[in-house]
């Protein structure tokens, strides 16, 4: 059994904290949503795909030149 009764001040601070929490959550949702939209607007991935630190022969401009054996 608790004898402690919350002051009305705590109620108001609780409301303020909830408000700030919702704002921060909204900000995260905005940044995430913008990221998704901006990336999707780039179009098909193979149009802007690059090497990404790994050699990828399929992205070479003319791969046949390097694969044909020389006589």
């Amino acid at each position, binding site marked *: 059994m608790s004898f402690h009764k919350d002051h009305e*001040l705590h109620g*108001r601070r609780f409301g303020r904290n909830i408000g700030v929490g919702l704002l921060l959550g909204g900000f995260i949702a*905005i940044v995430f*949503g913008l990221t998704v939209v901006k990336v999707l607007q780039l179009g098909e991935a193979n149009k802007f795909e690059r090497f990404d630190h790994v050699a990828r022969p399929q992205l070479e401009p003319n791969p046949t030149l390097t694969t044909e054996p020389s006589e």
Partner: protein
Amino acid sequence: MTDVSFQDATERLEAGFGDYFALLKPRVMSLVVFTAFVGLLVAPVPVHPFIGFIGILCIAVGAGASGALNMWWDADIDAVMKRTARRPIPAGKVQPGEALGIGLTLSVFSVILLWLATNAMAAFLLAFTIFFYAVVYSMWLKRATPQNIVIGGAAGAFPPIVGWAVATGGISVESVLMFVVIFMWTPPHFWALALFMKSDYDDAGVPMLTVTHGRKSTRKHILVYAALLAPVAVALAFTSVGGPVYLVTALAMNVWFVKGSYDIWRRDETQAEADNYLTEKKVFKFSLLYLFGHFGALVVDAVFRNAGFGAWV
């Protein structure tokens, strides 16, 4: 310190979330959101709905930030005027420094986010709008000239230009005309209010036209601005954003508005006091409808255009 005095102090000084939100002038924000949305919607470049939403949100937050800066600067005036005495700062709920901090933070935040989400032009225009309202209007000219309402009107007229820039990345004759409509509409709208809310501005010592140039001159100014506004409002019908719905709306509403302003001009104070400023109140109420009518008609024409009813111009 007794428990009682502690309780009194906390109740007076502790602001709720709603008090901070009130700093952003939500009612003004609703007009900003509406006109910016129309500017964005009628623009010829389609915008992704989420980007458009973020754009309008940034414009609304930027407008709210300039409102907070205005409340910080004008706290002394607000405390004197009946209409504004219950705002968070004069009411003692929010400290002036808090309002300044919120205003500055939200200004920077909204401009940067708008830049990242849309383009540099839209962000620049939003930053300029905030600067214009907070510095040029609130700090510089509001207390210095009876034309303060005209200057303040310019700040309130920017949102459709910013909305248009969110979509197009630029400024054009259509967005400038939307700006001019709000810019020319603001003085007769506020001066009609000042005619029947006379004591408020007098007490605060803000140089309103009604005080510095007299009420007869204010009536003349209302008529002149309404007459100059009419051709600009109708001209918008013949641009790429106009259409038959807008043209009919603009013609009807401008005839009524000029007629109402003419009625205000013809009256003197004795007549106005006799019927408790009936004409002035009617014109003020109609002026609210006027703006929503014009921008609403632009949306209707845009919907028709997008539905394939063809371009008007």
